[in-house]
């Protein structure tokens, strides 16, 4: 087949063309000579390609033409196109499928957790920006399918991915709006029964694979702790038997030693008529005293032996606990690297067994080889020293340094029929000194005919003076008393409409918080019962007719927990005193309630401890009883001896006369 000569080569008409279009683009001198020889110039200087080209020459021209084509441009067009295709594919996936996929995964995951239908709408995410947001989320209630467990409006989470790469967690915004519970649904939230069936086989496989029970049974003969526990059981059994016998022997010994005492106790001292009898009895008493001393020593020694045995048993118990820990470590070491890899290894083996069937033993032996080779690796002695790292100086430029954890904005908005509660907190961080903003927080509660706002700042940065400030603002509150007040028993209901404004801040270096709040009562309606006495009725009348009036509360919270409340009101001194007294009474009542609560909480614990202690001291009390018995015997003996001595002294006189 004849090779065609490319048109480029035929369209060379001048020497300049030849140089520019061919010779300049060919580097090898031999090839240049070849090209020059292909062309001939006529008298006018016009270049023409030879007519009688051999097939070898045509082949060479084709080769050179391919080189010319290859040498065009500076980019690798093939690789660039491939890169553009991959990039385009990722871009398309990101634009059209990524969010749907994430939405689907999140819905399925939440359905698995809550066992009820979950819907997410309008999900948008960006890995580069580190953001995730959706327009709404509804999670059904599996127990009440026509109601939602949780429903939200828009949810937004923005993180700084650049800081995540620096191991810092910076949350730019986390907000939940229109959060509500128990809202009705139009469709049932019950899941189809098929969904549950899909999950079970996988779960079973894993459960089977993670069989620690089987592992324990297999290694049971090699463990130390069961053997030690058995030994302990025998020793404690023997000790109990031994001590039963010893206590019986002790009883017998002490009773024998006390026998003379009992005899002596029964002796009628009035029958002693002379010194000899008295002396004999006194000698017997001295012997009894010595015997009682012996019994005391015997009890002390036995008690000491009991303590030694007790300590020995405690030590053995502690040894068993340590042995259990060591056995666990040994079991992990025997299976490979220990830790979670043990379970993973077992899981891998089980999955191989199930998936590969008859080839499973081969795969298992390969796995063993891999494990043994990985065990042999960590000999680092022969590893070559790393190449010297090229260092330099790091010049520091001012950078926005972020704390390890920072939440710039967290917002929760709760919706309840006509009420809306919004809480927001800003600039929470693990290192407040590093972050440029103080902590801001706000709380807002708005109803159909009232509002209540709290704004606060907490600044504990090192380079700024400490500051804690809370501003309060509100209007339109109605206060109904469902239960009668302790200080105003006749008051059945009070409806107060008031506005409030004020602030709380750090007042001195002792970290005391102080502030002033102004309450303006615009309307006060009180409904009092018939049982109110005349004085009460007067007070209620004064209060009811006094609006509008103001109450200024001056608060001071000291670091020790003490609270100083000062009230000023336009109602005058009497009302002020009454309010103060009421406040004090309320505080005292709270205190008493708190004390009672604390005691009621602690008392079961104290009772429990008491029982434990008495059980513990049960054995020792036996020795104490014995000791007390001996002591009482000694006391009895002493009084007996005193009586005898008196008797002897009395008897002596008539003999002397």
């Amino acid at each position, binding site marked *: 087949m004849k090779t065609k000569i490319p048109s480029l080569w035929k369209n060379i008409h001048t020497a300049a063309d030849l140089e520019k279009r061919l010779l300049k683009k060919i580097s090898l001198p031999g090839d240049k000579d070849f090209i020059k020889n292909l062309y001939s110039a006529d008298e006018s200087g016009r270049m023409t390609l030879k007519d009688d080209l051999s097939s070898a020459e045509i082949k060479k021209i084709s080769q050179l033409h391919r080189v010319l084509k290859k040498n065009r441009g500076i980019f*690798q067009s093939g690789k660039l196109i491939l890169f553009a295709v991959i990039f385009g594919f990722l871009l398309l996936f990101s634009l059209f499928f990524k969010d749907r996929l994430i939405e689907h995964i999140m819905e399925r995951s939440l359905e698995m957790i809550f066992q009820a239908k979950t819907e997410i709408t309008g999900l948008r995410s960006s890995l580069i920006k580190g953001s995730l947001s959706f327009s709404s989320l509804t999670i059904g209630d599996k127990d009440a399918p026509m109601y939602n467990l949780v429903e939200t409006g828009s949810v937004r989470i923005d993180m700084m991915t650049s800081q995540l790469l620096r191991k810092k967690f910076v949350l730019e915004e986390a907000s939940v709006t229109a959060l509500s519970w128990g809202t009705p649904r139009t469709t049932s939230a019950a899941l189809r029964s098929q969904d549950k069936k899909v999950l079970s086989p996988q779960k079973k496989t894993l459960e089977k694979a993670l069989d620690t029970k089987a592992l324990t049974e297999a290694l049971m003969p090699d463990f130390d702790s069961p053997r030690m526990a058995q030994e302990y059981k025998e020793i404690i059994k023997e000790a109990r038997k031994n001590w039963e016998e010893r206590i019986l022997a002790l009883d017998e010994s002490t009773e024998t030693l006390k026998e003379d005492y009992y005899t002596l106790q029964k002796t009628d001292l009035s029958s002693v008529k002379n010194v000899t009898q008295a002396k004999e009895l006194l000698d017997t008493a001295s012997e009894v005293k010595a015997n009682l001393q012996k019994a005391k020593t015997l009890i002390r020694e036995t008690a000491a032996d009991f303590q030694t045995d007790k300590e020995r048993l405690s030590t053995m118990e502690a040894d068993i606990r340590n042995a259990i820990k060591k056995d666990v470590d040994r079991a992990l070491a025997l299976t490979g690297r220990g830790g979670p890899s043990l379970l993973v290894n077992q899981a891998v083996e089980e999955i191989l067994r199930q998936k590969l069937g008859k080839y499973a033993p081969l795969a298992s032996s390969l796995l063993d080889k891999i494990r043994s080779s990985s065990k042999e690796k960590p000999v680092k002695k022969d590893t070559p020293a790393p190449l010297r790292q090229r260092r330099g100086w790091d010049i520091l430029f001012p950078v926005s340094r972020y704390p390890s954890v920072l939440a710039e904005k967290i917002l929760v908005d709760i919706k309840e029929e006509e009420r809306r509660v919004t809480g927001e907190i800003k600039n929470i961080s693990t290192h407040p000194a590093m972050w440029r903003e103080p902590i801001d927080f706000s709380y807002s509660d708005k109803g159909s005919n009232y509002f209540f706002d709290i704004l606060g700042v907490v600044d504990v940065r090192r380079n700024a003076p400490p500051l804690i400030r809370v501003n309060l603002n509100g209007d339109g509150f109605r206060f109904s008393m469902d239960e009668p007040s302790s200080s105003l028993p006749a008051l059945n209901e009070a409806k107060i409409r008031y506005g409030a404004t004020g602030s709380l801040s750090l007042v001195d270096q002792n970290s005391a918080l102080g502030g002033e709040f102004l309450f303006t009562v615009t309307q006060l309606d009180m409904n009092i019962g018939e049982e109110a006495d005349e004085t009460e009725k007067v007070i209620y009348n004064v209060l009811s007719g006094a609006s509008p009036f103001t109450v200024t509360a001056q608060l001071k919270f000291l670091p020790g927990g003490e609270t100083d409340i000062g009230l000023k009101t336009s109602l005058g001194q009497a009302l002020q005193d009454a309010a103060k007294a009421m406040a004090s009474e309320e505080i005292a009542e709270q205190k008493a309630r708190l004390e009672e609560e604390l005691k009621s909480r602690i008392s079961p614990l104290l009772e429990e401890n008491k029982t434990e202690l008495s059980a513990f001291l049960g054995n020792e009390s036996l020795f104490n009883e014995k000791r007390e018995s001996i002591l009482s015997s000694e006391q009895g003996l002493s009084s007996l001896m005193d009586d005898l001595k008196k008797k002897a002294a009395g008897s002596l006189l008539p003999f002397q006369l």
Partner: protein
Amino acid sequence: MPFLLKIFKALNSNQRPGEIAAGASFALLLGLLPGGNLLWIALFALTFFLKVNLAVQMALLVFFKLLAPAVDPLLHLFGYAILTFPPLYFFFTWIQNAPLLAFTRLNNTLVTGGFAAGLLLWLPSFVFFRFLIRRYREGFLRMIQNTKLYRAFMKLPLVVKFQKAARAVSHLPGRNR
């Protein structure tokens, strides 16, 4: 072996001298620039999309990497001078605060010095290497090719096989240079 064959073939074929020279110049730039930062990785990745001779680049990169520590003191001084040049203060501050650019480690004297020196030397080295290749092809290669010894050598069975191997390498998929 295919690696050396590629270099040999590149030098003795009609591949543009500029492609080989660009490979050498990029090797110089990457050699002077310390590794382990985003800038190095980006530059290295860039060369895969440009028509540069990667075999020459890799071979010379090893050479320049070994040589670079000898010129580190100079690169450090150069980098330090750039980083502390007041008009560039805001530029480097911006780089340090930009999300990904911070990982280029351009605040390091060696990185900046190596990068700046590499950029400055890129064009002269490109011109120099291109000149060398042209001189080699037009002078040395022509001279060698015209000797009787060369002609006799090229007819040796082993050399013929070597040439065939070189051709085979050049036709392997993905190894066209």
